[in-house]
């Protein structure tokens, strides 16, 4: 592998990691606080992408699509948490089954509405084409994706570690019952965190729709990758989502380049290894 192809794969890995971070961060926050494995997260991604695509195409404005996708998915997230999940709070099996059910409903409805052909999100002119970084040219849009993830990551980190709401969320991860005994309505915190997670998945859908394509099955595929991220990084840990995204993104990019026939192997072998050494992931609570 030459220096240039190495760098190329590195950037591919980083931009895929950036996309995965949008999903994994919400997924892991939801799990950490609510102990819900939200298997509808891939559905949130795909439907967010389709809604954003529709709005972006209809208005000719990518940014309106980027606004519409998270808003739509936040609304769906609100409904999912308030109306559906709340009834079965704390019952793990029903919760998982419900999120699987939502994923199926989303998959079927989007096949009905948006069809089975791969679609991609029209990206704005100034993000098209390549950016010359001296020794090579690399797609601008991928830099944009990395930049967005860094911004969102920093914002999430600050909100999580520096604000009172963030401290309440972390306290809830430690001991939900005690948070509520302090006079704080933990249900509102649950709803808020679920909405943030859903919203980020919606953003990911639109952004991913310009990177990969939106197609039936993309929901389960991205869900699988996100699961690998949070399992490697540690369920419930935000820094874990960063580390996990980087590992999975890079393993995927280099795996595809070096061992194209074994791309899933290069992804899941490290995951299995890490689980042997650290069963709760790299940064999970041991």
């Amino acid at each position, binding site marked *: 592998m030459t220096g240039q192809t190495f760098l190329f794969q590195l950037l591919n890995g980083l931009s895929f990691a950036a996309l995965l971070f949008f999903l994994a961060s919400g997924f892991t926050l939801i799990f950490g606080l609510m102990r819900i494995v939200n298997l509808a997260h891939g559905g949130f991604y795909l439907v967010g992408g389709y809604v954003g695509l529709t709005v972006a195409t209809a208005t000719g404005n990518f940014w309106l699509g980027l606004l519409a996708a998270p808003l739509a998915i936040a609304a769906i997230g609100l409904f999912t948490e308030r109306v559906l999940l709340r009834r079965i709070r704390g019952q793990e099996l029903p919760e998982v089954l419900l999120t699987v059910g939502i994923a199926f409903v989303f998959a079927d409805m989007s096949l009905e509405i948006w069809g089975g052909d791969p679609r991609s999100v029209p990206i704005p002119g100034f993000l098209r084409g390549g950016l010359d970084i001296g020794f090579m040219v690399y797609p601008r849009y991928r830099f944009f994706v990395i930049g967005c993830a860094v911004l969102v990551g920093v914002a999430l980190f600050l909100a999580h570690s520096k604000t*009172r709401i963030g*401290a*309440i969320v*972390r*306290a809830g*991860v*430690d*001991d939900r*019952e*005690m*948070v*509520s*005994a*302090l*006079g*704080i*309505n*933990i249900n509102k915190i649950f709803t808020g965190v679920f909405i943030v997670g859903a919203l980020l998945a919606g953003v990911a859908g639109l952004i991913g729709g310009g990177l990969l394509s939106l197609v039936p099955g993309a929901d389960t595929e991205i869900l699988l990758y996100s699961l690998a991220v949070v399992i490697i990084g540690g369920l419930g840990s935000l820094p874990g989502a960063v580390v996990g995204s980087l590992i999975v993104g890079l393993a995927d990019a280099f795996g595809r380049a070096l061992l194209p026939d074994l791309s899933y192997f290069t992804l899941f072998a490290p995951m299995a290894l890490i689980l042997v050494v650290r069963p709760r992931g790299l940064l999970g609570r041991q």
Partner: protein
Amino acid sequence: MLKIADVHANYGTASILRGVDLDVASGEVVGLLGRNGMGKTTLVRTCAGLAPPRLVQGEITFDGQPIHGLPSYQIGAQGIGLVPQGRHVFGSLTVLENLQVAARAAKDGDDGWTLDRVYGLFPRLKDRFNSRARNLSGGEQQMLAIGRALMTNPKMLLMDEPSEGLAPIVLGVIRQQLQELKTQGLSILLVEQSLGMAERLCDRLYILGEGGVIVWEGVPADLNADERAKRVHLGV
């Protein structure tokens, strides 16, 4: 202030409390004693609105308002501060964050609990403000659990076995701090297994005994003199 009347509570189908009556007047420190497993924590959790257990009969009123059946956050917001058995500090948060999370402005008047006042009562917490709560000693965690409850500006504290697992010297410090809270007029329901800490602190005592009912009530001096009650109900 707090009035518990004919409370029956179950875990599943196991009936633990079978008609408990107890009250705490404003400014009073009341002890609830009883051997391990008699249902003291069950009563505390029932008052705080935590489930399980499940209240199956009876009434709990606070400041004249019924609170049984309310979600725990509403009970907390109405002014009942919980210092649970086992402390339950937020281990991954710093001492300061533990206090900030709990902070709620006093309802009336300006002389509520603030960070400075809590640090004034527990200087140890100020020294360790930036440590993660899980790294504190047992005594420090107990102070933090009390300080955290105070930050909600409660009218009353429910304290479940604050002396559990603490060395006598630390216990002495905490007892003095509770004495200070009492002097300031805070109402407290103090749960303990034995007379030790409760004897000097409490105005009145109840003993929860076999059968999930109150088997003894009176003032500390009377219990101290009542060898039979101590032997039968407290096992000393």
